């Protein structure tokens, strides 16, 4: 009989939860441990704020060498950049630091104008095992991407450990692996963006990912105006409703839920829940 095992940990500044169904605790423990290792590996490798991470070394131009995993991630980022008409843009990091270093609206706008010319995925290219920037200013942040990628990687690890029924939740980025042992699908409650202590909608998931983008948790404040943690060069976003996307991978869901927060007219074949 499959028993429920729950694991919680903190990674990527986010509370992470694994609900695993397994016959024995040992099997679930081993799988959870492997997931934790994999997640911590990604956290270290792609941490924008850690000067020793591979991502920082690339941004600081200390190296231009990229491994296969990084190359694939950057290729996907470029692909989604096109599909979302430039809204999902990992180079927004080029201006991201301004939101914390500039204290007035005026200085923010002045500095932003200067750097905007270097924002866009066309400013970097991938050739063999090298990342090439066409200017010294463009920076990459996989923050809107790597947590979701970590969820997808976690699911791969769980499958490798023969866990057949599981729910992975990294700060609201979720993948449901198969159904619960009683045959019912996993149910995810989507929080009411105006009252996050309440669930506004219930969604059943089975071998599907769901992510929600919303602006009520992390924000930057400049002269009393709240800027969403989802910074786009296309518009100045403010506190908004939440967007949930259900797809086959957490990366796909994450990218579209982020992009749809900025432009609700982005085309997607995935199921979208707007609250």
């Amino acid at each position, binding site marked *: 009989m499959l028993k429920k095992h729950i694991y919680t940990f903190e990674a990527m500044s986010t*509370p992470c939860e694994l609900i695993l169904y397994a016959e024995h605790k040992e099997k679930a423990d081993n799988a959870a441990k492997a997931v934790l290792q994999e997640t911590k590996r990604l956290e270290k490798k792609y941490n924008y704020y850690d000067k020793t991470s591979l991502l920082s070394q690339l941004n600081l131009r200390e190296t231009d060498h990229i491994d296969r995993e990084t190359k694939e991630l950057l290729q996907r980022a470029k692909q989604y950049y096109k599909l979302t008409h430039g809204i999902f843009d990992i180079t927004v990091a080029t201006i991201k630091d301004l939101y914390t270093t500039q204290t007035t609206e005026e200085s923010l706008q002045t500095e932003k104008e200067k750097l905007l010319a270097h924002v866009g995925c066309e400013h970097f290219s991938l050739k063999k095992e090298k990342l090439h920037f066409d200017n010294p200013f463009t920076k990459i942040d996989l923050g809107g991407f790597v947590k979701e990628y970590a969820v997808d990687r976690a699911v791969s690890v769980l499958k490798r450990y023969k866990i057949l029924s599981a729910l992975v939740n990294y700060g*609201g980025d979720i993948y449901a692996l198969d159904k619960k042992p009683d045959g019912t699908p996993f149910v*995810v409650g989507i929080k009411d963006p105006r009252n996050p202590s309440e669930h506004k909608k219930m969604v059943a998931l089975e071998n599907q990912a769901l992510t929600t983008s919303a602006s009520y*948790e992390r924000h930057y404040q400049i002269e009393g105006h709240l800027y969403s943690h989802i910074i786009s060069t296309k518009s100045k976003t403010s506190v908004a409703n939440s967007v949930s996307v259900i797809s086959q991978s957490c990366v796909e869901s994450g990218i579209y839920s982020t992009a749809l927060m900025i432009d609700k007219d982005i085309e997607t074949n995935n199921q979208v829940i707007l609250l």
Partner: protein
Amino acid sequence: MQLRLSWCAATLLVATTMQAEDYVSVQVLQYNENDNRVSVTAPSIMLNKDFGTDYTLNASLVGDAVSGASPTYYDASSGASAYSRGKNVKTSDVEYGNVHFSEQRVAGSLLFTSRFSNRDELRVGANGSSEHDFNSGSGSVEYMHWLDSGKNSAITLGGSYQYNEITARCVDRVDCDTSSGASELKTATAVNLQLGVSHNINPESYMEVAAFYIADDGYLTDPYLNVVRNNNGITADIVGEKRPEERRAYGGIVKYVNAVTENTTLHLSYRYYWDDWDIDSHTVDSDLFYELGSDWTFKLGLRYYNQSAANFYSGSDSYFGDEGFASSDYRLSDFSALTYKSNVDYKITTDVSVNLSANYYDQTTGLKATYFMTGFRYNF
């Protein structure tokens, strides 16, 4: 499972003459509760270093490995887990018992003391601790002013601010497996103000009086504890407990130290605490120190503690309705406790000493605990 130490007890300081000493102390605490509840192993290291006669730095680092179980209600049909919550579960499936957990904590503190030309002291401290579901940081400032030239009386004014982050998963999760869309990170703050006066009555006795005020705000609920609501005898709801988001506490401490004989010292103290959750508590503490020669120091102590219950506490599974604050945490119940304390210090050389303490805690709720601490201290 966040370890919320008694904030007041941990920080309340009244003027004492700091003994100038440079030392390193290494200790290991082993704490065990009965009924296979909480077990804690906590090694710690403390460094105290004087810089001339005007400055002292004290730094400590402690690591906790906590494992065991804490009792709460759960849905027995889903297993003994804090997550075993549900609406309309069968009343026969409502059980109260130990829910297992394990935790590791790292905590550090720094205290810097600066003495002025009149020997008044300014103490500035910082503390931080981290667990996977609980992070805490705090800062404190304290000023001690001598009231007389003979330095027999002093007044101390201090304050501290603590910021806590609690990951409150699943608190309202009764109808789904998980949640998406908003952080479940909750925060809480604690402000502590205290005013104390100390006085050397005569060469053999010393007295301290202090008053304190504590303001807790934010998420004060324990995310791992459940209560039973709407128990109609057939079905019941097992949901997370819910506490007020504000608590104001007041109290005072009186401490008296008397050198009974040349080598025997008696420490007596009384602490009164009241908060607006209606918890009143009284603590009477006594320690007797006996020095045998210059190498051995023995301590025997007894502490009595009594508190009334919080106004939203009930240990019953058929008490709470659908609304309102609710907790079945036995730590908020009406109980008394006795702590039997013993300690021995032995100076191996002038600079090196070892210590061993053994203590037994007996609470009227049935909780019993033993804790031992051993270690050494090196003066340099």
